[in-house]
């Protein structure tokens, strides 16, 4: 099974890459751009056939290592 973990900076915390990129987009004329949030995606492949178990294990991996819960939020998406 394959899961896509998306990690981004929590709202309200400094995100220098996001702020700089938002400015650059507006400079290019995209006036509709508000906040831009940077993050990373991690593709995790795991063995097993129970999606719920796998998802809960990956949730634990995110809390322990893949994300820093102090400054980051994450979502987990099962890929076909």
């Amino acid at each position: 099974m394959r899961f896509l973990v998306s990690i981004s900076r929590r709202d309200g915390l400094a995100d220098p890459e996001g702020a700089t990129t938002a400015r650059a987009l507006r400079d290019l004329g995209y006036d509709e751009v508000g906040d831009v949030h940077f993050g990373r995606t991690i593709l995790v492949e795991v063995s097993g056939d129970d999606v719920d178990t796998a998802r809960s294990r990956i949730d634990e991996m995110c809390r322990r290592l893949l994300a820093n819960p102090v400054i980051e939020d994450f979502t987990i998406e099962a890929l076909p």
Partner: protein
Amino acid sequence: MSRVAVALFPGTNCEQDVVYALDLLGAEADLVWHRETDLSGAAGIVLPGGFAHGDYLRTGAIARFSPIMQEVERFAVAGRPVLGICNGFQILCEAGLLPGALVANRDLRFICRPVHVRVETTGSVLTRHAEVGAVLRIPLNSYEGNYVAPPQELDSLERTGRVVLRYVDERGEATGSPNGSANRIAAITNATGNVAGVMPHPERAVEDVLGSADGRVLLESFVASLQPVPA
């Protein structure tokens, strides 16, 4: 004489500077590989700067699971001195031994230059022998030196006097933060004052020939905090 364990992770690169500075100040330092699990002979621990485990994932994220970190945590809980410098500060935050985190500098540039910091409290192993209000000139050398923490955590740090050093200009005035750090924070400590994290490098400012000896008082404070280890 009290011995200091200087942790060496794959990618650490400031360990010799720390050993040199500690030696200069009369402490004996031992380089200790990150897989070591027994530091019972040490009176204190320093996590030096560098790029532990390549800074992969996030700075300090992998390093916090290195075997030596169990000893770091044990020292932290036991009230023994633990100091993280630069990457070491990032590791202590990732390990949850200090609050908050360090992210990319506001201007997305690596900063490598002397900065001025003001001593905010003497209630830490980093500043015990310093004077509140003293302005020190110390090299900053980091890309992820921008301290962030949730608002309630920042409030708590301020309320309990755990901000140890703050970025200022050469006159000691609060004119801005070189890297965007929240509340211009350059160093913080834990609730008991025995665990401290500092972003600039005091070990690179211990002799006039280095351009500044202002870091001396900080490392002297750390050395003075070491208690002899019971045999």
